[in-house]
Protein backbone atom coordinates (compact mmCIF):
# COMPACT_ATOMS: atom_id res chain seq x y z
CA UNK A 1 0.00 0.00 0.00
CA UNK A 2 2.86 2.33 0.77
CA UNK A 3 4.74 1.72 -2.43
CA UNK A 4 2.93 3.18 -5.38
CA UNK A 5 4.07 3.68 -8.94
CA UNK A 6 7.21 2.15 -10.35
CA UNK A 7 9.16 0.92 -7.36
CA UNK A 8 12.16 -0.38 -9.27
CA UNK A 9 13.48 3.12 -10.02
CA UNK A 10 13.83 5.41 -7.03
CA UNK A 11 12.09 8.78 -7.30
CA UNK A 12 14.99 10.52 -5.58
CA UNK A 13 18.49 9.13 -5.21
CA UNK A 14 21.65 10.50 -3.64
CA UNK A 15 25.08 8.95 -4.30
CA UNK A 16 28.16 9.49 -2.16
CA UNK A 17 27.26 12.96 -0.94
CA UNK A 18 29.92 15.03 0.78
CA UNK A 19 29.36 18.47 2.25
CA UNK A 20 31.48 20.63 4.51
CA UNK A 21 30.28 23.64 6.50
CA UNK A 22 33.38 25.69 7.23
CA UNK A 23 35.62 23.20 9.02
CA UNK A 24 32.94 20.72 10.07
CA UNK A 25 32.29 17.82 7.75
CA UNK A 26 28.52 17.34 7.74
CA UNK A 27 28.31 14.57 5.14
CA UNK A 28 31.03 12.19 3.98
CA UNK A 29 29.88 9.71 1.41
CA UNK A 30 26.19 9.39 2.28
CA UNK A 31 23.86 7.60 -0.15
CA UNK A 32 20.09 7.31 0.10
CA UNK A 33 17.10 6.46 -2.04
CA UNK A 34 13.47 7.45 -1.81
CA UNK A 35 10.86 5.56 -3.81
CA UNK A 36 7.57 7.06 -4.95
CA UNK A 37 4.97 7.10 -2.19
CA UNK A 38 7.44 5.83 0.39
CA UNK A 39 7.83 7.26 3.86
CA UNK A 40 11.49 7.20 4.85
CA UNK A 41 12.83 8.20 8.24
CA UNK A 42 16.36 9.54 8.60
CA UNK A 43 17.57 9.24 12.17
CA UNK A 44 20.80 9.87 13.98
CA UNK A 45 22.26 11.86 16.84
CA UNK A 46 22.50 15.65 16.59
CA UNK A 47 25.39 16.60 14.35
CA UNK A 48 25.23 13.37 12.36
CA UNK A 49 24.36 15.27 9.16
CA UNK A 50 20.61 14.59 9.00
CA UNK A 51 19.57 18.14 8.15
CA UNK A 52 22.37 18.58 5.63
CA UNK A 53 21.27 15.37 3.90
CA UNK A 54 17.72 16.74 3.69
CA UNK A 55 18.99 20.09 2.37
CA UNK A 56 20.97 18.31 -0.36
CA UNK A 57 18.09 16.01 -1.31
CA UNK A 58 15.59 18.88 -1.44
CA UNK A 59 17.89 21.00 -3.61
CA UNK A 60 18.26 23.64 -0.88
CA UNK A 61 22.05 23.28 -0.87
CA UNK A 62 24.44 21.82 -3.42
CA UNK A 63 26.65 18.97 -2.21
CA UNK A 64 30.43 19.44 -2.53
CA UNK A 65 30.69 15.98 -4.03
CA UNK A 66 28.26 13.32 -5.18
CA UNK A 67 25.04 13.41 -7.16
CA UNK A 68 21.34 13.90 -6.41
CA UNK A 69 18.90 12.62 -9.03
CA UNK A 70 15.21 13.46 -8.93
CA UNK A 71 12.97 11.87 -11.60
CA UNK A 72 15.89 11.73 -14.02
CA UNK A 73 17.12 15.28 -13.36
CA UNK A 74 20.45 16.00 -11.68
CA UNK A 75 19.52 18.43 -8.88
CA UNK A 76 23.17 19.25 -8.17
CA UNK A 77 23.51 20.66 -11.69
CA UNK A 78 20.28 22.67 -11.91
CA UNK A 79 20.14 26.46 -11.74
CA UNK A 80 18.99 28.10 -8.53
CA UNK A 81 15.91 29.37 -10.37
CA UNK A 82 14.85 25.90 -11.49
CA UNK A 83 15.59 24.46 -8.02
CA UNK A 84 13.42 27.12 -6.44
CA UNK A 85 10.64 26.25 -8.88
CA UNK A 86 11.01 22.54 -8.11
CA UNK A 87 10.84 23.17 -4.38
CA UNK A 88 7.75 25.30 -4.93
CA UNK A 89 5.86 22.88 -7.17
CA UNK A 90 7.08 19.30 -6.79
CA UNK A 91 8.38 19.38 -3.22
CA UNK A 92 6.90 20.51 0.06
CA UNK A 93 8.98 21.38 3.11
CA UNK A 94 8.14 21.41 6.80
CA UNK A 95 10.63 22.55 9.42
CA UNK A 96 10.58 22.47 13.18
CA UNK A 97 9.17 25.98 13.09
CA UNK A 98 9.59 29.24 11.20
CA UNK A 99 8.13 28.31 7.82
CA UNK A 100 4.98 30.38 8.28
CA UNK A 101 5.14 34.11 7.62
CA UNK A 102 4.17 35.68 10.95
CA UNK A 103 2.27 38.60 9.41
CA UNK A 104 0.09 36.45 7.14
CA UNK A 105 -3.08 34.74 8.32
CA UNK A 106 -2.96 30.93 8.44
CA UNK A 107 -5.14 30.59 5.35
CA UNK A 108 -2.97 33.04 3.38
CA UNK A 109 0.17 31.19 4.46
CA UNK A 110 -1.31 28.02 2.98
CA UNK A 111 -2.52 29.91 -0.09
CA UNK A 112 0.91 31.44 -0.76
CA UNK A 113 2.33 28.59 -2.91
CA UNK A 114 -0.82 28.71 -5.03
CA UNK A 115 -0.55 32.50 -5.40
CA UNK A 116 3.08 32.05 -6.45
CA UNK A 117 1.84 29.66 -9.12
CA UNK A 118 -0.50 32.37 -10.39
CA UNK A 119 -3.82 31.35 -8.81
CA UNK A 120 -6.36 34.06 -7.98
CA UNK A 121 -6.69 35.04 -4.34
CA UNK A 122 -10.26 33.73 -4.07
CA UNK A 123 -9.43 30.32 -5.54
CA UNK A 124 -6.23 30.00 -3.54
CA UNK A 125 -7.99 30.83 -0.29
CA UNK A 126 -10.76 28.34 -1.05
CA UNK A 127 -8.28 25.52 -1.72
CA UNK A 128 -6.23 26.51 1.33
CA UNK A 129 -9.40 26.35 3.43
CA UNK A 130 -10.04 22.78 2.29
CA UNK A 131 -6.53 21.77 3.31
CA UNK A 132 -6.87 23.43 6.70
CA UNK A 133 -10.12 21.49 7.10
CA UNK A 134 -8.32 18.24 6.31
CA UNK A 135 -5.79 18.94 9.06
CA UNK A 136 -8.47 19.99 11.53
CA UNK A 137 -7.44 23.65 11.78
CA UNK A 138 -10.05 25.31 9.57
CA UNK A 139 -11.29 27.31 12.56
CA UNK A 140 -7.83 28.89 12.88
CA UNK A 141 -7.72 30.05 9.25
CA UNK A 142 -8.03 33.74 10.04
CA UNK A 143 -5.48 33.61 12.90
CA UNK A 144 -1.89 34.67 12.53
CA UNK A 145 0.83 32.10 13.32
CA UNK A 146 1.67 33.82 16.61
CA UNK A 147 -1.85 33.12 17.85
CA UNK A 148 -1.67 29.36 17.16
CA UNK A 149 -0.43 26.58 19.44
CA UNK A 150 2.66 24.65 18.35
CA UNK A 151 0.60 21.71 17.13
CA UNK A 152 -1.83 23.93 15.24
CA UNK A 153 0.91 25.90 13.53
CA UNK A 154 2.67 22.67 12.46
CA UNK A 155 -0.60 21.42 10.98
CA UNK A 156 -0.95 24.70 9.09
CA UNK A 157 2.65 24.20 7.91
CA UNK A 158 1.75 20.69 6.71
CA UNK A 159 -1.22 22.11 4.83
CA UNK A 160 1.10 24.64 3.20
CA UNK A 161 3.59 21.90 2.24
CA UNK A 162 0.88 19.67 0.75
CA UNK A 163 -1.35 22.27 -0.91
CA UNK A 164 0.45 22.05 -4.26
CA UNK A 165 0.06 18.22 -4.28
CA UNK A 166 3.85 17.69 -4.26
CA UNK A 167 5.50 14.37 -5.04
CA UNK A 168 7.81 14.56 -2.04
CA UNK A 169 7.43 16.23 1.34
CA UNK A 170 10.66 16.97 3.21
CA UNK A 171 10.03 17.21 6.94
CA UNK A 172 12.93 18.29 9.20
CA UNK A 173 12.03 17.49 12.82
CA UNK A 174 8.39 18.50 12.22
CA UNK A 175 7.47 17.55 15.78
CA UNK A 176 10.69 18.76 17.39
CA UNK A 177 8.99 21.51 19.38
CA UNK A 178 5.79 19.62 20.25
CA UNK A 179 4.61 17.56 23.22
CA UNK A 180 3.82 13.90 22.60
CA UNK A 181 0.09 14.29 22.02
CA UNK A 182 0.47 17.18 19.57
CA UNK A 183 3.31 15.27 17.95
CA UNK A 184 1.05 12.25 17.48
CA UNK A 185 -1.66 14.38 15.88
CA UNK A 186 0.80 16.03 13.49
CA UNK A 187 2.38 12.71 12.49
CA UNK A 188 -0.98 10.99 12.00
CA UNK A 189 -2.11 13.88 9.79
CA UNK A 190 1.13 13.88 7.77
CA UNK A 191 1.35 10.12 7.26
CA UNK A 192 -2.38 9.69 6.62
CA UNK A 193 -2.50 12.42 3.99
CA UNK A 194 0.74 11.35 2.33
CA UNK A 195 -0.40 7.73 2.01
CA UNK A 196 -3.78 8.83 0.64
CA UNK A 197 -2.19 11.09 -1.96
CA UNK A 198 0.74 8.79 -2.72
CA UNK A 199 3.20 11.49 -1.65
CA UNK A 200 6.66 10.35 -0.64
CA UNK A 201 7.95 11.71 2.68
CA UNK A 202 11.53 12.17 3.82
CA UNK A 203 11.30 12.53 7.57
CA UNK A 204 14.22 13.73 9.67
CA UNK A 205 13.88 12.95 13.36
CA UNK A 206 15.85 12.01 16.44
CA UNK A 207 12.71 10.53 18.00
CA UNK A 208 12.24 6.76 17.51
CA UNK A 209 8.49 7.06 18.08
CA UNK A 210 8.26 9.52 15.19
CA UNK A 211 10.55 7.37 13.04
CA UNK A 212 8.20 4.44 13.64
CA UNK A 213 5.60 6.16 11.42
CA UNK A 214 7.86 5.52 8.43
CA UNK A 215 8.06 2.46 6.21
CA UNK A 216 11.83 2.39 6.44
CA UNK A 217 14.62 3.98 8.39
CA UNK A 218 18.15 4.99 7.53
CA UNK A 219 20.49 5.90 10.31
CA UNK A 220 23.27 8.46 9.94
CA UNK A 221 26.48 8.37 11.95
CA UNK A 222 29.21 10.95 11.30
CA UNK A 223 27.85 11.88 7.90
CA UNK A 224 27.48 8.38 6.49
CA UNK A 225 24.61 5.90 6.43
CA UNK A 226 25.22 3.39 9.21
CA UNK A 227 22.24 1.06 8.90
CA UNK A 228 19.28 0.85 6.59
CA UNK A 229 16.27 -0.84 8.12
CA UNK A 230 14.17 -2.69 5.56
CA UNK A 231 10.50 -2.04 4.94
CA UNK A 232 7.93 -4.09 6.82
Amino acid sequence: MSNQGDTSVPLLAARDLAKTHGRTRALSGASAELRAGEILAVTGTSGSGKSTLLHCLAGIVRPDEGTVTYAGERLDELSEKRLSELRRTEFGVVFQFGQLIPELRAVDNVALPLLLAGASRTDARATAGEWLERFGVRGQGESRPGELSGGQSQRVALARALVTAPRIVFADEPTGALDSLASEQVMTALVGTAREAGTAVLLITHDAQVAAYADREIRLTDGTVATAGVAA
Partner: protein
Amino acid sequence: MSTRHILLGLLAGGPSHGYDLKRRHDERFPQARPLAYGQVYTTLQRLVRDGLAEVDGTGSDGGPERTAYRSTVDGSRELARWAGEIAPPAPFVTNEIFAKVVVSILADGDPEAYLRAQRAAHMERMRELTAVKTAKGSDLATVLSADYALNHLDADLRWMATTAARLTTLTAEVDTA
Protein backbone atom coordinates in the same frame (compact mmCIF):
# COMPACT_ATOMS: atom_id res chain seq x y z
CA MET B 1 0.10 -9.09 36.00
CA SER B 2 -2.60 -10.56 38.24
CA THR B 3 -5.09 -12.56 36.16
CA ARG B 4 -7.19 -13.11 39.36
CA HIS B 5 -7.83 -9.43 39.77
CA ILE B 6 -8.50 -8.81 36.12
CA LEU B 7 -11.14 -11.56 36.12
CA LEU B 8 -12.63 -10.13 39.32
CA GLY B 9 -12.77 -6.77 37.58
CA LEU B 10 -14.56 -8.24 34.59
CA LEU B 11 -17.04 -9.94 36.95
CA ALA B 12 -17.74 -6.63 38.70
CA GLY B 13 -20.17 -5.70 35.94
CA GLY B 14 -22.31 -8.81 36.53
CA PRO B 15 -22.22 -12.62 36.34
CA SER B 16 -20.40 -14.09 33.41
CA HIS B 17 -19.15 -17.49 32.24
CA GLY B 18 -15.61 -18.49 31.36
CA TYR B 19 -15.79 -18.21 27.61
CA ASP B 20 -17.37 -14.79 27.84
CA LEU B 21 -14.68 -13.62 30.30
CA LYS B 22 -11.89 -14.68 27.94
CA ARG B 23 -13.52 -12.88 25.01
CA ARG B 24 -14.07 -9.70 26.98
CA HIS B 25 -10.52 -9.80 28.32
CA ASP B 26 -9.01 -9.98 24.84
CA GLU B 27 -11.29 -7.18 23.69
CA ARG B 28 -10.56 -4.91 26.63
CA PHE B 29 -6.78 -5.41 26.53
CA PRO B 30 -5.83 -5.42 22.89
CA GLN B 31 -2.23 -6.29 22.00
CA ALA B 32 -1.85 -8.06 25.40
CA ARG B 33 -0.98 -11.74 25.51
CA PRO B 34 -4.35 -13.52 24.94
CA LEU B 35 -5.70 -15.52 27.91
CA ALA B 36 -5.83 -19.31 27.53
CA TYR B 37 -9.14 -21.05 28.36
CA GLY B 38 -7.42 -23.36 30.78
CA GLN B 39 -5.98 -20.42 32.66
CA VAL B 40 -9.39 -18.76 32.92
CA TYR B 41 -11.00 -21.88 34.41
CA THR B 42 -8.19 -22.60 36.91
CA THR B 43 -8.24 -18.99 38.05
CA LEU B 44 -12.05 -18.99 38.46
CA GLN B 45 -11.86 -22.17 40.56
CA ARG B 46 -9.20 -20.61 42.80
CA LEU B 47 -11.34 -17.50 43.23
CA VAL B 48 -14.28 -19.72 44.34
CA ARG B 49 -11.97 -21.66 46.71
CA ASP B 50 -10.81 -18.36 48.33
CA GLY B 51 -14.40 -17.10 48.67
CA LEU B 52 -13.86 -14.18 46.25
CA ALA B 53 -16.29 -15.51 43.64
CA GLU B 54 -19.13 -17.99 43.56
CA VAL B 55 -21.08 -20.01 41.05
CA ASP B 56 -24.08 -18.09 39.80
CA GLY B 57 -25.73 -21.01 38.04
CA THR B 58 -25.45 -23.15 34.96
CA GLY B 59 -27.23 -22.79 31.68
CA SER B 60 -26.86 -24.11 28.19
CA ASP B 61 -28.57 -21.59 25.86
CA GLY B 62 -29.00 -24.44 23.42
CA GLY B 63 -25.24 -25.05 23.26
CA PRO B 64 -22.91 -26.92 25.62
CA GLU B 65 -23.55 -26.47 29.36
CA ARG B 66 -21.71 -23.47 30.84
CA THR B 67 -21.16 -22.34 34.43
CA ALA B 68 -21.65 -18.63 35.19
CA TYR B 69 -19.72 -17.00 38.06
CA ARG B 70 -20.27 -13.84 40.06
CA SER B 71 -18.14 -11.81 42.43
CA THR B 72 -18.72 -11.97 46.24
CA VAL B 73 -18.56 -9.10 48.75
CA ASP B 74 -15.06 -10.23 49.71
CA GLY B 75 -14.22 -10.32 46.02
CA SER B 76 -15.30 -6.68 45.51
CA ARG B 77 -13.32 -5.64 48.59
CA GLU B 78 -10.20 -7.45 47.37
CA LEU B 79 -10.62 -5.89 43.90
CA ALA B 80 -10.89 -2.39 45.39
CA ARG B 81 -7.79 -3.00 47.52
CA TRP B 82 -5.75 -4.21 44.55
CA ALA B 83 -6.90 -1.49 42.16
CA GLY B 84 -5.87 1.23 44.62
CA GLU B 85 -2.51 -0.32 45.47
CA ILE B 86 0.46 1.17 43.67
CA ALA B 87 2.45 -1.05 41.35
CA PRO B 88 6.01 -1.30 42.77
CA PRO B 89 8.17 0.90 40.51
CA ALA B 90 10.88 -1.36 39.10
CA PRO B 91 11.70 -3.28 42.30
CA PHE B 92 14.46 -5.32 40.66
CA VAL B 93 16.62 -3.94 37.92
CA THR B 94 16.88 -7.00 35.76
CA ASN B 95 17.04 -6.54 32.08
CA GLU B 96 17.70 -9.15 29.48
CA ILE B 97 19.32 -6.76 27.04
CA PHE B 98 21.83 -5.54 29.62
CA ALA B 99 22.55 -9.13 30.68
CA LYS B 100 23.26 -10.08 27.07
CA VAL B 101 25.60 -7.13 26.62
CA VAL B 102 27.60 -8.04 29.74
CA VAL B 103 27.69 -11.74 28.92
CA SER B 104 28.79 -11.00 25.40
CA ILE B 105 31.68 -8.87 26.74
CA LEU B 106 32.68 -11.68 29.13
CA ALA B 107 32.56 -14.25 26.33
CA ASP B 108 34.52 -12.00 23.90
CA GLY B 109 31.44 -11.65 21.71
CA ASP B 110 30.34 -8.60 19.70
CA PRO B 111 28.03 -6.57 21.96
CA GLU B 112 27.92 -3.74 19.42
CA ALA B 113 26.53 -5.98 16.69
CA TYR B 114 24.05 -7.42 19.16
CA LEU B 115 22.82 -3.92 20.15
CA ARG B 116 22.46 -2.98 16.47
CA ALA B 117 20.39 -6.06 15.74
CA GLN B 118 18.30 -5.52 18.86
CA ARG B 119 17.70 -1.92 17.86
CA ALA B 120 16.50 -2.98 14.42
CA ALA B 121 14.13 -5.50 16.00
CA HIS B 122 12.80 -2.85 18.39
CA MET B 123 12.23 -0.41 15.53
CA GLU B 124 10.45 -3.07 13.52
CA ARG B 125 8.10 -3.77 16.42
CA MET B 126 7.52 -0.02 16.90
CA ARG B 127 6.56 0.32 13.25
CA GLU B 128 4.08 -2.55 13.66
CA LEU B 129 2.55 -0.99 16.75
CA THR B 130 2.36 2.42 15.06
CA ALA B 131 0.58 0.82 12.11
CA VAL B 132 -1.93 -0.80 14.48
CA LYS B 133 -2.40 2.54 16.22
CA THR B 134 -2.91 4.60 13.07
CA ALA B 135 -5.08 2.03 11.22
CA LYS B 136 -8.50 3.44 10.30
CA GLY B 137 -11.15 2.77 12.93
CA SER B 138 -8.83 1.72 15.76
CA ASP B 139 -10.42 2.55 19.13
CA LEU B 140 -8.83 4.49 21.95
CA ALA B 141 -8.08 1.34 23.99
CA THR B 142 -6.00 0.03 21.08
CA VAL B 143 -4.22 3.38 20.70
CA LEU B 144 -3.44 3.65 24.40
CA SER B 145 -2.16 0.10 24.78
CA ALA B 146 0.00 0.51 21.68
CA ASP B 147 1.28 3.80 23.12
CA TYR B 148 2.23 2.06 26.34
CA ALA B 149 4.35 -0.46 24.48
CA LEU B 150 5.78 2.21 22.16
CA ASN B 151 6.94 4.32 25.07
CA HIS B 152 8.63 1.33 26.70
CA LEU B 153 10.34 0.32 23.49
CA ASP B 154 11.42 3.92 23.01
CA ALA B 155 12.92 3.93 26.52
CA ASP B 156 14.79 0.71 25.68
CA LEU B 157 16.09 2.28 22.49
CA ARG B 158 17.36 5.36 24.27
CA TRP B 159 19.05 3.19 26.85
CA MET B 160 20.64 1.10 24.08
CA ALA B 161 21.89 4.25 22.32
CA THR B 162 23.70 5.51 25.44
CA THR B 163 25.01 2.03 26.18
CA ALA B 164 26.34 1.63 22.65
CA ALA B 165 28.12 4.97 22.99
CA ARG B 166 29.83 3.82 26.20
CA LEU B 167 30.69 0.25 25.30
CA THR B 168 34.46 0.82 25.44
CA THR B 169 34.32 2.01 29.04
CA LEU B 170 31.93 -0.79 29.97
CA THR B 171 34.19 -3.40 28.36
CA ALA B 172 37.18 -2.11 30.33
CA GLU B 173 35.16 -2.18 33.55
CA VAL B 174 33.76 -5.69 33.00
CA ASP B 175 37.13 -7.09 31.98
CA THR B 176 39.02 -5.78 35.02
CA ALA B 177 36.32 -6.77 37.52
